[in-house]
């Protein structure tokens, strides 16, 4: 198969994109929606305690930086709309916009709409259905003060609300990543705003499996690589959500783990047959990695012996 060179491909992609954007007639999207005019009169904080403590909220900071001298009520209006009638009616809730469910999340996406390379607030895997939306995990006024990003609870606990099966694996299998201490959480490996492909698993900037962000010693490149990045990835052998077997392997014994690929019963697949002196009925040869120590790749040994 003939491929475009990387430079030519990038040039074409960027030219198409730039041409598209240049020809667009749409006005520039504002950094944040313009606030509704609030008539002089009582401020939101006169009645609402949430408004009194809003000064430390990242929304207030961002709005304040973009609109010097802005009053608290103005930033309230960006999400809740003009509150004049609400105030005049003595606090009638039907005369103010409250944010719930999917329609509430649509308000969030008014500002948080720009997509990144692998994730999108607006069209990501968790975005804006009635069942799962921004407000399922974040709360503007009632977030957990011990959590960043206005989360209502710690990330792992939030994910477990729906992903009970994955949460159970971490809690109950003997060999699993340690999530309970907080140094790692579901969002260390998954992007909750990511696209649905590959379960929104994070990759490194260079496109490697996210595992090597921590496990850099198996990143390579190696003179003699094995599986990772070539014809498989870390999950070819390991189960990141937890395993019954040492090193979170897929199989109970090393011999099974290795032989399932290294068995040339059928032509056309990658993975050589071990030589016949490997008598796997003996413990010495059942433990393949005792000799083949460099299973993640070697700089020195074609047979991954060191």
């Amino acid at each position, binding site marked *: 198969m003939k*491929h475009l060179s990387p430079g030519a*491909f*990038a040039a074409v*992609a960027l030219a*198409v*994109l*730039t041409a*598209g954007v240049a020809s*667009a007639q*749409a006005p*520039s*999207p504002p*950094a944040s929606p313009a606030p509704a005019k609030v008539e002089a009169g009582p401020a939101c904080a006169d009645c609402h305690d949430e408004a009194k403590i809003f*000064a*430390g909220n990242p929304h207030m900071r*961002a709005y304040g930086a973009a609109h010097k001298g802005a009053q608290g009520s103005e930033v309230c209006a960006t999400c809740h709309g003009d509150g004049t009638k609400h105030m005049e009616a003595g606090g009638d809730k039907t005369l103010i916009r409250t944010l719930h469910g*999917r329609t509430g999340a649509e308000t969030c996406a008014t500002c948080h709409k*720009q*997509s*990144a390379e692998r994730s*999108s607030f*607006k*069209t990501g895997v968790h975005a804006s259905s*009635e*069942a799962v939306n921004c407000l399922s995990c974040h709360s503007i006024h009632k977030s957990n003060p*011990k959590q*960043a990003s206005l989360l209502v609870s710690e990330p792992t606990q939030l994910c477990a609300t729906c992903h009970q099966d994955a949460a*159970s694996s971490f809690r109950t299998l003997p060999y699993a990543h340690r999530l309970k*201490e*907080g*140094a790692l959480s579901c969002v260390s490996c998954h992007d909750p705003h990511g696209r*649905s492909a590959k379960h929104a698993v994070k990759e490194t*900037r*260079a496109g490697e499996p996210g595992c090597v*962000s*921590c496990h850099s010693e198996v990143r390579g490149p*190696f*003179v*003699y690589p094995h599986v990772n990045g*070539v014809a*498989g990835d870390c999950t070819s052998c390991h189960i990141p959500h937890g395993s019954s*077997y*040492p090193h979170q392997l897929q199989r*109970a014994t090393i011999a*099974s783990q290795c032989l399932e*690929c290294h*068995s040339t*019963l059928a032509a*056309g*697949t990658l*993975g*050589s*047959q071990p*030589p*016949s002196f490997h008598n*796997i009925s003996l413990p*010495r040869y*059942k433990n393949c990695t005792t000799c083949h*120590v460099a299973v993640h790749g070697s700089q*020195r040994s074609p047979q991954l012996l060191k």
Partner: protein
Amino acid sequence: MRTFRSAFLVATLAALGSAGLARAQAIPFDIEVGYRFLTLSGSEESYRSQINEREGFLVRSIHIGEDGKTSGFPILDHLRIDGAELGAGPAGSLRLDAGLAGAYRLRASYRHFDQFSALSGFANPLGAVVGQQTWDRQRDVVDVNLELLPGAVVTPLLGYTSNNLVGPGTSTAFLGQDEFRLGQDLKVHDQEFRVGAGFRAGPVSGEFLQGWRRYRETEKLSLLSGAGAGNNTGTVLDKDVNLSSYSRSSVTDINTPTTSFFVRGFLTDSVQLIGLYVKSSAGGDDTDTTSATGSLVSFPVARFFTGLTENGSSRVDNTVWRAGARVEWHVLQGVDVTGGFVRRHATWDGRDLVSSLFSGTSTFTGFTLADLTTILNAKNSIERTEDVYDVQVAAKAFGPFGIRAGYSQTQQDLTISPDPSEIVVPGGQGGTFNRKINRYEGALTFAAGGFFIAGEASWDDANVAVLRTDFTSRNRERVRATWKGFSWLTLGATGLWIDQKNDTILISSKGTSRQYTGDVTITPVKMLRLHGAYGKMQADSTIPVRAPQDFSVFDSVNKEDGELYEAGLGLKFDKLAIDGFWTRFANEGTYEYRLYRGGVRVDFDATQHFGLVGEWSVDRYLDTQISTASFRATRIGAYLKWRP
């Protein structure tokens, strides 16, 4: 131990310093610090390999600036620091987020991991209690990102990441037709500097980032005391093989500049285009020296020998680039269409030169010969291209329903040209492979009247397998349903079904996985929460394999049959909170074991500023296969909470 003390000292000093600062500036501050006791019976190696919560001082949690605001600092308008589990590990973290709106935003994190492995069932050819490959290492990861002038037209970006892995271990070396246990000292330092800029000009915005990564690894290996006899208790060609000395040292240096460019623009209010280009070029050099003496045998050179001196140097170049474009079209309220294409291309070129001097050589019939030098001069290469097309439609505004459907196609082209030295047994180590995978996926959500249902499914088919364990078809379905009919009752259930197979003649593998959980949460009164869950996990896979020694064919079978019970309780009074849990998991599959876990935490706020926390937890692991790997660990913790 030294690292643990350092981490605890740093955390405590940081906490005290921050407390003073926080108090002076009226920034909220909250710390929980104390001591954890550990009582362990059974296998310490298993306990540390699985859990590794040790006895010692512990900063359980620290939070500074949790309301996100500051006062009195000219260069800060927000500061928050969150830390957890610093000290007696095994995984601690400290995160900082600070900034001044419109001026800068600084995000930094420090994470520490104690990595321990000494397993009974791994690298254990002699059936000893602990396997021959172990480690006891510390990993420290620091990540710092600074964004200047956030929100401006151009926002300069600076970043630094450091990942250190240090510590002793044991490993093995194959030499002279035997394996020998070695002591290992490994030092890995991986760091990356990044500089770039984000930009925003009308409807176009994006980011350019240039990074420089340097990876340096040094490894020293030497023969462990008493390990000279090797694993092979017999003789080779009537000669006893043994090692009297062994040392190996290697240094690996890898430099990787990475350039990434990402741009997005709004064609109209409802159409967004995204383009990306990433290029990463890694160049690695490795040198190593090995020397060994003993009574050894080499079949490749057909000699006995008494000494080996080996010098090696290698070079590997790996260039990866990725380019693509996406479109996101907001068709109408609640309906979005997205699609994209990305190409990933990677090449590896490896060159390896090894000079081996065999001294004290003799033929297998006993004739003394001169020293022998062999040269390995290898060159191999790999090229891989992957094209992925995807399109997805999401309709989320059908009242309580949300629907998503998508299709993607992945085309993989792989060419491997191994060096002849890599080919031990002909076949399976090189060639050209092309694989095409089609994926159809869909999801449905429903939320109304206290019901929540989310289902997702994907169906993959591939024309061929590259690895034997690759699928030719795979289905995955998952459903989660909850019902919150009353304010005091929530019922939930989850089901996961995965089926995959490879129909290739003489492979004919199949695998299934089933996972079911049911859970109930009851809050009869506001102060009391009760939780219970039951789960079932089953997995079966078979694939025929060939035994190397006699070419017989047999099925490699893996089975999991696990059953889970969970119970939890939460009780909250004005100043007192009690949380408890208990779980039991039993697996009767290929590897049988049972695992019991339980714990209670009592949290008492004595005053507005001080509180006391007591914790008790137990982990009991019963290994049916290797009974000596079982353990029971009880931990008791006493912590002081302080909010100045």
